[in-house]
């Protein structure tokens, strides 16, 4: 993943290969968004009254994942702000609901995407927002420009 400033001399894109990595991240987000949306629609559609709080939280999480997927894929100036908001909401959500579900498991008779730090999804919901934040920081256009103009601060 190392990119040298010299790379720009032969006309090649001097940026790290993060473009592809960003797309891989979008793929994982897409799969999780699909899984969370399908599951919450099914839960809310068939048995919303059984466990309203967990199912409502699942629905909220699903919406945030869909927004994050679209915003990360779009990668425009405003969409990057939307993506920042979405990944931070995810991180806060997974930590808050995760902690809450450990303290008060009786509130969560049914698992949500975020309960127990995303245990039911292999803890991916806890890891993804961190990867999302790292990616957004790394691919930040202002940071890349700074890195190119003064290589020592990279």
């Amino acid at each position, binding site marked *: 993943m190392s990119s040298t400033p010299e790379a720009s001399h032969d006309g090649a894109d001097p940026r790290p290969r993060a473009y*592809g990595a960003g797309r891989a991240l979008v*793929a*994982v987000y897409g799969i999780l968004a699909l899984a969370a949306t399908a599951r919450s629609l099914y839960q809310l559609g068939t048995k919303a009254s059984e466990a309203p709080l967990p199912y409502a939280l699942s629905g909220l999480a699903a919406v945030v994942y869909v927004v994050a997927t679209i915003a990360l894929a779009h990668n425009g100036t405003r969409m990057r702000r939307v993506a920042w908001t979405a990944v931070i909401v995810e991180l806060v959500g997974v930590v808050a609901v995760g902690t809450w579900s450990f303290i008060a498991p009786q509130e969560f008779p049914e698992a949500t995407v975020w309960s127990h730090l995303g245990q039911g999804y292999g803890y991916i919901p806890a890891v993804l927002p961190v990867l999302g934040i790292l990616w957004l920081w790394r691919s930040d256009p202002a940071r890349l420009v700074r890195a190119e103009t003064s290589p020592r601060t990279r």
Partner: protein
Amino acid sequence: MRGYSGRVLAVLVSVGVLATALTVWAGVRAARDRPVQGGQLPGMIAVEAALVVQAVVIGVLQAGGHPVPDGILLWGYVITSLCLLPAAFAWAFVERTRWSSVVLAIAAAVVVVLQVRIWQLWQ
């Protein structure tokens, strides 16, 4: 009904083994900084063919009276597992870097996880 479940398990395990092999193959190519190549298409077709067989077996046995407590969820998983690998290959046409291999490895790994979930729901 015991024998029927054995057949479903056999198909699930076959899909799981094939998809695991594809995960490793794509993972090795990702580690070597290589994109998905056309030669991996037969691997994907093998997994997809096994998945189609699985969908037919599950459909026939369910129609034949095997009780499935959560049919909608089961078919949600079956259909999702059918869509993942074609999506990963479509991705590979656009993304000609190592990251297409990463995406394929992830998609194949998710197929393996879905097989476990399908087995849990089938029982």
